[in-house]
């Protein structure tokens, strides 16, 4: 009997780590037996050459599986046009917070027949269940080409818009630095790059908590602010910065402010274009605290209103030429800085992105961005970040060479 008990205890000791805390490596492939299934459509303009999942791990924690994906996909442009951006959708579990993600690689120029890599570093969670099939599903969601045409299922609904906006911003910033190089030479380019790096470094940072339903339940700092402010919310109106070239005008807006919490914001906008309908508008926020410090929310977490509801219409509808619409995300935002709540004194908005119904997009020009002291602290675009990083890591010659590529 004692021998049997000892055997049972030994088996238990071996089995428990399998349930708690033990990490398991993941394998990738296009077959259903792989723990990471990679799925590209048959007519996809990019094809999978290889996939590496060396550092990917799954760790059971309580009733959840934590999936740390560190993968690298080697893809080939098998189409006829240069690829400028790719997005893949990664699904561990639908409808679970943190169960779905996406990885985008913008700012590339891959001619037909060439290979490129897509690094995937993401953490997702899924409930523990006895289900067959792969743990993670990686699907191609969109490919953007150099003529701004798009291929893909666009399941995320925003892949085409995001890739197009990133590419248009990239074209704007590459053209700007090329122009500086041409007009002012390498010394002028160096001064401009150093100035941009200084601006990026000086950007004030805000910590933001966002909730979609009711009040946020956030941090201690935020809770303190809520108690300071009690439940007394004051209605505050937005002020707006008008950008000369913007096709959409922000007309009026309002939100309830309680301490460091902004509730139920809404903004009314007007489509100034005389022919084209607008499908999507994003408003950047600038928040001013009680001490007079200004934070450009559009360049730090919480880029503000991005859902579009036209007046009395369902989400996803458009604002016809010359008509007005209403942005009403139904979100609550809460701001803190260095662990302390930031009491909000006033808010300023500006139109930061517009997508027309025909898929074309508008972003502020460099001239627009230089038109206001506030906008000069906006976050650099992904392409500008890349160019500044090339200068910082490889020097001016490498930056000049990169600007000459395309």
């Amino acid at each position, binding site marked *: 009997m004692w021998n049997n008990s000892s055997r049972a205890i030994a088996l238990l000791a071996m089995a428990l780590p399998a349930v708690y805390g033990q990490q398991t490596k993941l394998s990738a492939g296009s077959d259903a037996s792989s723990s990471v299934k990679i799925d590209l459509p048959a007519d996809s303009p990019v094809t999978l050459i290889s996939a590496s999942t060396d550092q990917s791990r799954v760790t059971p924690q*309580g009733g959840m599986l934590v999936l740390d994906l560190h993968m690298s996909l080697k893809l080939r442009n098998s189409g006829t046009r240069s690829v400028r951006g790719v997005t893949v959708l990664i699904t561990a579990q639908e409808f679970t917070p*943190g169960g779905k993600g996406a990885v985008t*690689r913008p700012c590339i120029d891959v001619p037909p027949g060439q290979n490129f890599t897509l690094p995937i570093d993401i953490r997702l*969670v899924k409930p523990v269940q006895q289900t067959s099939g792969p743990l993670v599903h990686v699907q191609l969601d969109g490919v953007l080409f150099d003529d701004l045409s798009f291929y893909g299922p666009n399941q995320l609904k925003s892949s085409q818009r995001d890739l197009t906006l990133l590419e248009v911003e990239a074209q704007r910033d590459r053209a700007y630095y090329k122009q500086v190089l041409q007009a002012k030479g390498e010394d002028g380019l160096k001064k401009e790059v150093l100035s941009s790096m200084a601006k990026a470094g000086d950007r004030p940072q805000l910590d933001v908590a966002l909730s979609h339903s009711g009040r946020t339940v956030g941090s201690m700092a935020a809770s303190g602010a809520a108690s300071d402010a009690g439940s007394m919310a004051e209605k505050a109106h937005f002020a707006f910065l008008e950008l000369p070239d913007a096709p959409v005008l922000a007309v009026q807006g309002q939100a309830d402010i309680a301490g460091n919490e902004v509730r139920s914001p809404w903004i009314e906008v007007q489509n100034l274009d005389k022919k084209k309908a607008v499908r999507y508008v994003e408003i950047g926020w600038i928040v001013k605290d009680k001490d007079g410090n200004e934070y450009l929310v559009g360049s730090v977490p919480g880029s503000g209103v991005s859902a579009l509801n036209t007046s009395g219409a369902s989400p996803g509808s458009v604002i016809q030429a010359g008509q007005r619409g209403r942005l009403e995300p139904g979100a609550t935002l809460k701001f803190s800085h260095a662990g302390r709540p930031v009491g909000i004194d006033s808010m300023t908005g500006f139109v930061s992105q517009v997508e027309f119904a025909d898929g074309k997009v508008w972003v502020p020009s460099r001239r627009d961005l230089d038109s206001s002291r506030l906008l000069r602290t906006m976050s650099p675009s992904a392409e500008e970040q890349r160019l500044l990083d090339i200068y910082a890591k490889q020097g001016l010659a490498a930056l000049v060479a990169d600007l000459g590529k395309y």
Partner: protein
Amino acid sequence: MSERHPSEADLALLAGGDCGLLTRFNLNRHVARCGDCRDTLASFGELRSEVRDMAMPDFAANESDWSRMAGEMRANIRLGLAAGECIGEGPVEATHRNRAPRFAIGMAGVVLLAGVGMFLHGLLPHDTLPGVVSSAVLESSGTGVEVRTDKGSMTLMNQGDVTADQTITSQGAIRDSYVDGNTGTVTITSVYVE
């Protein structure tokens, strides 16, 4: 001289192959000569087969399932102890010489099961992980991006030593844009919370 019959518990252990060598030898010798005990042993064997063929429940995915299972386990343990007492009080002609070691073994088993129960309860989803809930809060700070629910919070993105630009969109996504200094690769990673 009439031989005493072994207890039902001993026969159950024999059916499961859980007896020691000497006990098994003695029991087998008795069963070979006693029709009643042979029938009892056969019924225990059939019962084991039926239990083995029963479908096991799915692995519990949430706390309520775990709590229910833990409750059932505790109830089964209590039921088992009560049944043991009934057997002890009955008119079964059982030998008393092994009572003390059996009691000690039984208590050791109860302590072990209680310990395992407490350990398993520690494995339940608790305040370090978000559960499957309808609403969540995204929180971004200098150290990373967290998803916070009424069940707890969890870091989904951690910047580490990589310079990243974080954005929380009002559509319910955390977006982390960073440049790999070695390759110059820009990657934008988004995690959706709703």
